[in-house]
């Protein structure tokens, strides 16, 4: 089996698949060559706004704690500002900077190699689990740990287990504690449980998480409350509200990226001998966009253009709208699906899948509808075999990574000691 058996594009000849790859490469080159001062101004402006908001929020929270009348409105306003600042930082700034979208500027202060974001996960670990593992093995069951984050059963191909009944609960916990879930993501709890994790590497990662998490917690729950004097409790609550707002928001946006009904999952066999063009196709088929205005897109880190982001993770996010026009046209031309819908529908579908898959397959029906099933053959059967039990590959066993996925770097524990 190869990726060309995937239902959605088996109508294409090999030559057409290669042609699509060439057209996408051409888009990439054009955008790369046209990056200019206006793009640089965009990210610089955004960083300025974000830091202004964060600073303003701290001032409002601190100052209002000393005034009886202003305390409650100040706390509400301050936490809204802080939440917004954190969302902007994590999504449109941090995520995209760490993908290397702004490395071309040659500015060491806005560079994937040393950006550290305002959330619990150490940047270095995120670059590995996200830029490398997720973006390279997008939606490949058993390879891509972002499918359900090791907590949720998100594909019918994943074997059902009685613990899955609790999915609605795990899902809510994940939403509220998203930052901490992400913090543990690269540790690979599954491997630890099976005793397969290199103990030194584990120690190194835990140390990183501990230091990063400690600083984050100290800042929001100790230092700033202490500065707010008598009403430190209000500041704690406001900071917690800001963090939770950010958590829930990022969770929602991120679940809209690959779990709406149109996004396809793949099996290991399907990506054997995958060509570059087929990799592109997998990104198109595996991702889902949502619609919205400019503000919504900025607040969601441009992940409403998830398809474009997955095709070109290191091109500047402010260019995704124009890239999307061209990708859509390309999909029309080659009769490829392009999944897009309003945010609430995309998330609604992801949520429905979470709920349905808490039950065994035989109790529920697949949501995926294949248009024109008669000409493309019937809906393929769910592949045999429990994916959860497939052995996860280590980095060494994985194929060579693709360059444009963004930076990551990680030494083994020994090398860094």
């Amino acid at each position: 089996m190869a990726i060309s058996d995937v239902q959605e594009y088996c109508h294409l000849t090999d030559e057409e698949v290669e042609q699509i790859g060439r057209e996408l490469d051409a888009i990439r080159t054009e955008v790369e060559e046209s990056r200019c001062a206006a793009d640089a101004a965009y990210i610089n402006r955004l960083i300025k706004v974000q830091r202004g908001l964060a600073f303003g929020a701290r001032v409002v929270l601190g100052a209002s704690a000393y005034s009886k009348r202003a305390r409650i409105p100040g706390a509400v306003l301050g936490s809204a500002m802080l939440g917004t600042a954190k969302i902007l930082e994590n999504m449109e700034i941090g995520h995209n900077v760490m993908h290397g979208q702004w490395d071309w500027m040659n500015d060491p202060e806005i560079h994937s190699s040393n950006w550290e974001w305002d959330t619990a996960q150490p940047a270095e670990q995120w670059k590995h689990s996200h830029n490398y593992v997720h973006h390279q093995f997008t939606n490949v069951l058993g390879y891509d740990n972002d499918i359900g984050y090791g907590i949720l059963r998100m594909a019918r191909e994943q074997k059902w287990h009685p613990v899955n009944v609790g999915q609605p609960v795990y899902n809510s916990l994940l939403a509220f504690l998203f930052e901490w879930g992400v913090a543990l993501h690269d540790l690979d709890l599954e491997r630890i449980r099976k005793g397969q994790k290199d103990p030194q590497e584990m120690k190194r990662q835990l140390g990183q998480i501990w230091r990063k998490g400690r600083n984050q917690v100290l800042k929001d729950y100790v230092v700033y409350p202490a500065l707010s004097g008598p009403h430190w409790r209000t500041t704690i609550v406001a900071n917690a509200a800001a963090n939770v707002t950010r958590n829930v928001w990022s969770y929602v946006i991120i679940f809209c990226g690959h779990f709406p009904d149109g996004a396809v999952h793949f099996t290991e066999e399907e990506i054997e001998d995958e060509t570059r063009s087929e990799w592109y196709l997998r990104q198109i088929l595996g991702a889902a966009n949502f619609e919205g205005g400019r503000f919504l897109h900025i607040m969601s880190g441009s992940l409403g253009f998830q398809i474009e982001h997955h095709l070109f993770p290191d091109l500047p996010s402010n260019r995704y709208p124009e890239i999307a026009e061209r990708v859509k046209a390309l999909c029309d031309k080659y009769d490829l699906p392009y999944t897009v819908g309003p945010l609430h529908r995309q998330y609604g579908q992801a949520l429905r899948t979470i709920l349905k898959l808490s039950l065994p397959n035989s109790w529920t029906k697949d949501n995926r509808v294949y248009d024109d099933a008669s000409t493309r053959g019937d809906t393929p059967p769910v592949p045999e075999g429990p994916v959860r039990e497939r052995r996860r590959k280590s980095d060494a066993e994985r194929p060579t990574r693709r360059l444009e996925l963004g930076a990551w770097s990680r030494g083994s524990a020994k090398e860094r000691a």
Partner: protein
Amino acid sequence: MATDTTPRAAGQRQGWHRVRSVGSKLTTPLHPDDYLRFVNPLWTARELRGRVEEVVPETEDAATLVIKPGWGWRWQHRPGQYVGIGVQVDGKFQWRSYSISSAPSRSRRTISITVRAMPEGLLSSHLVKGLEPGTIVRLALPEGDFVLPDPPPDKVLFLVAGSGVTPVMAMVRTLHRRGTMPDVVLHYSSPTPERMIFRDELAQLEEHHDSFTVHRLHTDTDGMLDPARDLDEVCPDWRERETWACGPGPMLDALSEHFEAEGVAERLHVERFNLQLGADGGEGGTISFRNSGKEVEADGATTVLEAGEQAGVGMPYGCRMGICHTCTLTLVSGKVRDLRNGEEYDQPNEQVQTCVTAAVGDCVLDI
């Protein structure tokens, strides 16, 4: 950003350092400087920055940029040294290095560099024509051994052409400021009188000091300086003088040859504008780029940066001549040699500047 990209924390005052590290409890994972720089772009020590205060036209195609450096700058450059400057052109920081033409002085709080626009030089024309006062530039600390010793020798000869006058200007100004002008002969070639940078100031200095003589050569009408033919005439006692020469490559080559032939090579100090990588290269080998899984065979003269680019790795770079440190990567294993001075780096996880090092045998880099 948790990683401090400042290579010069040592120069900061202790007290400030402590205030900043307490402040970072409030700003983590950023530095306080990341916020402060929005109040004043120079209030950051994360990286050396400067603000262009003035752009003074010198000739039709050359201008002096007066720059006020920000936090972290050490007022210690020696006359003759050059500085790396990074300017955003079309959104991207481009790096070049220019000699500092001002005399070292703390009191003025500025440095100046003099730039001549080259027809093909994107950055130099941008600096001369397009730079607004107020522009923020990145800076690298002064470097270079083309410097005047202190105290200066009794008899000095400067042989310069074109914008090669700038480092020498810093030396002459220093001698003037200190009031210690020894016996100095300056030979200055330029196509026309109008193209002579600092011509008024040089004339004034000449008037002011009896011991300072300027020879002007206009190559459009008089042809180039031929050391073998002209030097004895221009400056009969040149063999007894300590000589500093700066200008185009062919001129420096001719001078080196002549000084060599006359047996006084050790008296000549030259400054070349292009990065001169010594003959003492690495032996070459296979360079592997770990994260991308790419590999490339490189010979001992190819820099790691060039090799990486050939292999299609997205290598970071700035000045490409060893001054800005943008290109620094972790050497996981193996050995590289610095092409400028032959220094070797072979510690596991050592930080190396890829633009000035070449492989000595097989090595692995973390990118």
